[in-house]
């Protein structure tokens, strides 16, 4: 069997709304990927540790709390500190101007409400195809 795409889906910070994370996880599963779901209220440290232990190709963050700038920045810093280099995608309620800033910081993609699931699947396939 060839290489499987492994994805970590995580919800950082104080945010209990995980419907979106589960819908995306389900779609990626149905697209043939192995999706590791961390559950709610993870710290940036826990997310980065999990990504290293699970040897994932991609990290997907679901954030609806408004703290996306802070949380993404912290996660990117920790990844740099530990030498983890995988693309991060963020989904949730993210204002357009923040989405641009996140991309400048190094986030690979930002998805708001109404994004077709097929678009997320395609982007992840593209991003991992480039990496391997």
């Amino acid at each position, binding site marked *: *069997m*060839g*290489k*499987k795409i*492994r994805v970590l889906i995580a919800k950082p910070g104080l945010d209990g709304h995980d419907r979106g994370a589960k819908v995306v*996880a*389900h779609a*990626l*599963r*149905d*697209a*043939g*990927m*192995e*999706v*590791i*779901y*961390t*559950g709610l209220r*993870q*710290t940036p*440290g*826990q997310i980065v*540790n*999990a990504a*290293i*232990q*699970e*040897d994932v190709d991609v990290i997907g963050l679901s954030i609806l709390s408004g703290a996306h700038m802070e949380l993404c920045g912290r996660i990117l810093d920790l990844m740099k500190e530990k*030498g*983890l280099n995988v693309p991060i995608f963020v989904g949730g309620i993210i204002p357009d101007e923040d989405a641009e800033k996140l991309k400048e910081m190094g986030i690979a993609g930002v998805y708001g409400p109404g994004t077709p699931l097929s678009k997320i699947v395609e982007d992840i396939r593209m991003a991992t195809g480039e990496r*391997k």
Partner: protein
Amino acid sequence: MMGVDILLERYRNGDIFALSRLITLCEDGKYHFEEPDVENYHVIGVTGSPGVGKSSVIDRLAAKFLNDGVRVAVLAVDPSGPFTQGAFLGDRVRMRDLNARGVYIRSMASRGILGGLGPAVCDAINLLAGFGFTRIFVETVGAGQADIDVMNVADTILLVMAPSMGDEIQILKAGIMEIADVYVVNKSDVEEASFLRGQLEALLMMDESGRSRQIVNTSCVLDKGFEELKMVVEKHYTDMVSSGEMAERRRRRKRYFVTKLVMKEIQELLNSINIDGLNFEEIKKMLCRRFLGSRCDCV
């Protein structure tokens, strides 16, 4: 992609990235890792039906081991789908505190393998033991009555059960009920748990095999019973070491590991042979030639 030699060197130097990547290579069938030259590690298999609380039991039990200062790792297997081969690996959700306390948790998909485990569980056990983890939990997929492969892999087998999932007829069925070293009556805060406990006690009273099997009540919501469970698991380990049973179980794991590897090779060779118009003997000879190459002396 980094070469295996570099990965192995980094792994030997305690690099967690290298450990994780080596497990991936083993899962993808690109590498295999044999038994390390260490002995003082304990592989604890945790099996049982979906939803009985296997991951939660590991979460609470591992916390007790951590209090003793030992290094804990968890291999958690969940099923791959039959249609797209995708998987939703959700065992980490129940083990949130372990991550923060330095436990290595690796989720694995079963990737089409029946029996309750995945393709690289033995490789991963060997890698983790060689890395210095001394308590290695192996959580099976939510298991059915015939998913008993964990008996070939673990030193101690915990069968986690929950009340209200069937009467004593289910307890009498062969298969998974027979492989347990410890029956964990989880969700024991629920009133019906006493019936389950009674049925298990009756089962063990009838057992004349001489095996030492225990029943432990636990409740994850109340965090009760896990100190007792830890002591029972530890005693099973020391008893097995002194009786020589441990050596037997390690042999069993090696045999299972090697059998799976050889079977996989043969299966792949067989798939590559055009069997049209050949009878069984002819196919066997052709297979043998492919398997052994020039060393084959089939005529």
